[in-house]
């Protein structure tokens, strides 16, 4: 198997303005903070981002949004980010909301080569508006199109050089789904090991989905426990 390990600058050079970028993470765990910093430094703008939340003000993808590099965010929840809520209200960024599990399933469908999914979630609500409704076996269902991206930015606990990935605890979240749903998949890994070191049984994402692996080395302060979330 070939090695996919490269440095941050090389990996981020593949991104272009106007692209759709999926970003893993639910809150801080699983957010690829280093790749996001790399994207900030790289300069691409006019991006569409897909993430389940917008991190918190000054952190993660909020830094890209605050820097006006993002045209639209496709997301399930903004609740912990008053900065982005303010930008949304001032129409400085477009926001498209989905129920969290439907967002996950749209991404999974994109990664699984499907065209769309059918669901009754939200069928009695305003999210039905502007959506195609079909009737099957006497039941109504909303058509939710599969979602793919140009690039996915993924955080893994361990990667081997072939791009096989292992996630830790609640940092798994959207990462394995997004790692299947983009044309180019860039992974930051806390530790990179040699091919053959990971047990094939332990691998969450097979390396075939992964294009580039960036080793993090010492973690920056962005990855630390957020003291304001400790009770």
């Amino acid at each position, binding site marked *: 198997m070939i090695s996919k390990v490269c440095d941050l600058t090389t990996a981020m050079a593949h991104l272009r303005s106007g692209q759709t970028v999926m970003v893993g993470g639910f809150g801080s765990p699983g957010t690829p903070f280093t790749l996001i910093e790399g994207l900030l430094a790289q300069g691409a703008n006019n991006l569409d981002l897909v993430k389940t939340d917008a991190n918190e003000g000054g952190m993660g993808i909020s830094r890209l949004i605050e820097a006006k590099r993002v045209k639209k965010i496709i997301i*399930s*929840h903004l*609740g912990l980010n008053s900065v982005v809520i303010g930008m949304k209200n001032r129409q400085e960024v477009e926001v498209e*909301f989905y129920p*969290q*599990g439907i967002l*996950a399933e749209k991404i999974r469908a994109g990664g699984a080569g499907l065209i769309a999914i059918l669901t009754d*979630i939200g069928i009695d609500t305003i999210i039905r508006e502007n959506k195609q409704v079909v009737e099957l076996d006497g039941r109504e269902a909303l058509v939710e199109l599969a979602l793919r991206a140009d690039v996915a930015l993924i955080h893994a606990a361990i990667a081997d050089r072939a791009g096989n990935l292992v996630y830790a605890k609640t940092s798994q979240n959207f990462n394995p789904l997004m790692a299947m749903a983009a044309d180019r998949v860039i992974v930051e890994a806390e530790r990179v090991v040699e091919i053959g070191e990971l047990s094939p049984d332990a691998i969450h994402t097979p390396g075939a989905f992964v294009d580039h692996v960036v080793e993090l080395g010492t973690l920056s302060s962005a990855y630390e426990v957020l*003291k304001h979330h*400790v009770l």
Partner: protein
Amino acid sequence: MSYKEKIARRAAREIEYGNLINLGIGIPTLISGYLNPEDGICIHSENGILGMGRAVQLAEADRNLIDAGGVYVDVESGAAFFDSAVSFALIRSGRLDITFLGALEVSAQGDLANWIIPGKLTPGIGGGMELAQKAKRVIVTMTHTDRNGNPKIVPNCLLPLTARGCVNMIISDLAVIAVDSGRLVLRELAEGVSVSEVVSKTAASLHIPDTELPTF
């Protein structure tokens, strides 16, 4: 004991041995403080945990282990971690025995509105729609009235719905109210609260049983 703790303590009594439950953000989170390990209850967290434990102090906090509200937690013995598609497969396929959620409005028919106040509060949907629509029981824990004293239990929701006809029970700072065959039935009163107070602070019509009501 604060009114939030009283609501949480009462809500915990709805959970049966071996139940699989989900605790929303806010008052529902406090319910875990009233559960005992011998009750065999398993807590699901939508960010990918079955067997979630309790909130932990800074020294025990693991940067990779939070609940859906971002609070650092631990896990019970036998816990499992999984991705968001698995987590919501579990919710949408109806495996949760109870979900505890907050509310902005609940209607007489058990409609729930808790995700948006158009033009004012637009935090997004999160996992609430799927939890409300698909859990076997939906129990709302909330203050009986809003900050301005307006009733939150209403004949019909004016706010956009989260899900229609999904609520089974409301546990507020004043009362326990069951949604029973399309009507609201007063089941219990908070200590020191009268039937007339509950009725005056409930905009929807309330069925009052003839029997004496228990207190909590």
